[in-house]
């Protein structure tokens, strides 16, 4: 019982800490890793709450794929939340009708 309480509180602390870290961290790559940690803890939660199907889905989609598409996005855009804007005019592509 005591072990369970410690375990659950540990999970709660990790998941909330990771969420807060993901929000306050200015370096987006670290923030995204933190969301990966959230997914990981979430998947542990699902597993111990007897939802192995959901845990597997969260592990495959939440930890691996969501994280990677975030990383790809960051590589294509800017990595810092407090980026310095480039003073360029927006460039538009021409549209075919």
């Amino acid at each position, binding site marked *: 019982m005591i072990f369970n309480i410690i375990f659950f509180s540990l999970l709660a602390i990790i998941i909330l800490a990771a969420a807060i870290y993901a929000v306050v961290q200015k370096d987006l790559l670290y923030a995204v890793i933190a969301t990966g940690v959230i997914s990981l803890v979430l998947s542990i939660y699902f597993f111990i709450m007897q939802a192995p199907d959901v845990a597997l889905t969260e592990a495959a989609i939440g930890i691996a794929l969501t994280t990677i598409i975030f990383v790809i996005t960051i590589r294509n855009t800017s990595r810092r939340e407090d980026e310095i804007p480039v003073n360029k005019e927006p460039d538009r*592509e021409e*549209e*075919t009708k």
Partner: protein
Amino acid sequence: MVISPVHYIALPLLAAFLMPLLAKVNRELVRIIPGVVLTYLLFVSVVLMQRVTETGQPIIETLAGWQAPWGINLVFSQFTGFLVSLMVFMATLIWIFSYRFKKVDNEPALKYYILFMMLVTGSVGVVLTGDIFNMFVFMEITAIASYSLTSFYRDRDGAEAGFKYLLIGSLASTFMLLAILLLYTQVGTLNMAMIAERMHTVPVGMKVTILILFLTGLGIEAEMFPLNGWAPDAYSQAPSPVGATFAALVVKAGVYSLIRVIFTLFDIQGAYQYLIIMGIITLIIAEFAAMKQTNLKRMLAYSSIGQMGFVLIAFGIGTKEAVFGALFLMFNHAIIKSLLFMSGSFFVYNSTSKDINGMSGIGKKFPYMGFLFSIGAFAIVGLPPFSGFWSKLYILIAAADESMLALVAIILLVSIVEIVYYFRVVAKLYFGKPTDKEVVHKPTFGGYFSMTVLAVVILLVGFYPDIITGFIHRAADTLLDKGAYISNVLSMGH
């Protein structure tokens, strides 16, 4: 194979999965297939509406062989059938209008037609389904198709509008998920008829919380204040057939879900007052905002929001006549606003700017298009003898019957505002000084055809409202008869 409501979902999905393959065979198939599917669905609508009208009983289709409440079911009643038929009719016309869309660019054309067809399927599914979580799934289908279509064009602020829409839409779906979860914990089922049957067992506090979550989640698609920040941008940045689709289908699906939740699922009287209040706020803010707009499409978008506020007020009054008026207005709004969007997009296309000022005198150059736009403008403000007149009249009578005179005054006042800003555009079209910068693009044959059909429908309903009122009356009765809905759905196979 007997014709049944599931055709509305299964066939578009089959076609959508097939289209990437068919695109490799022949480019033209990408354009033809959605039309074939939609035309077939129109035929299905005619057959099913006939069946429903003859028997007076809704068609309830079980899926996967499980009766309600164990499985998901589709309900094609006189009410949902009316809405679905309207949606499919409008979708077919919009398809004809946009047949030559993206003629040169093959890849985007494929995506456009797939997304458009799924937008239609999602909206139809929201109306047909009898299961609350299934409704959520269809809403997400509609939503993802809308986000992508809103940001379809690269040469305007499409991505910005799409992102705003996505932001609000995701928050909405979160609220809806929470509401579904809480509802499930309270009644232990997801079937809407069974939820309605067991609703009286739910504690009042919980009921109110769930209702508020639902209203927040669903009010977004229904463009209810203050959740409609996405609408003006989405309407003005999306390709114009998509704008017409938003007005004719997506918003209707949103209003339907809101109405279904309040009228059938819940038994809270306060919800009706809430609808009236939110409707009035939505109406007033949107109509005054519309007056300030210089961009034609934004003006049409705000006007659309205002009309939805009007619909919400009418539903909020809650009497049979008011519901009749509201459904009539939904019908009118679908056809009129689509006509306005189609002809309006033609003006935008032919003038150098999107501003109303840039369109001055364009009606002289294109008298027929100007004529169509004017019909739409006169109809939507509710002038006789156009169809919009009748719906406004019925709602006013319903409000007066309930001795809500303040409401009547507000509606009339707002109508004046509406008249002012629509007439300003019409006057500009005809009496403005023509600018010589215009580039002439003739609309396609399909464009002419669908706009003419819409104008004819507006005039026809305006002169002979009886051709449509029978259906709407029966639809209103079906919506208000909650007991029949529950017993019809749950008695299947018992």
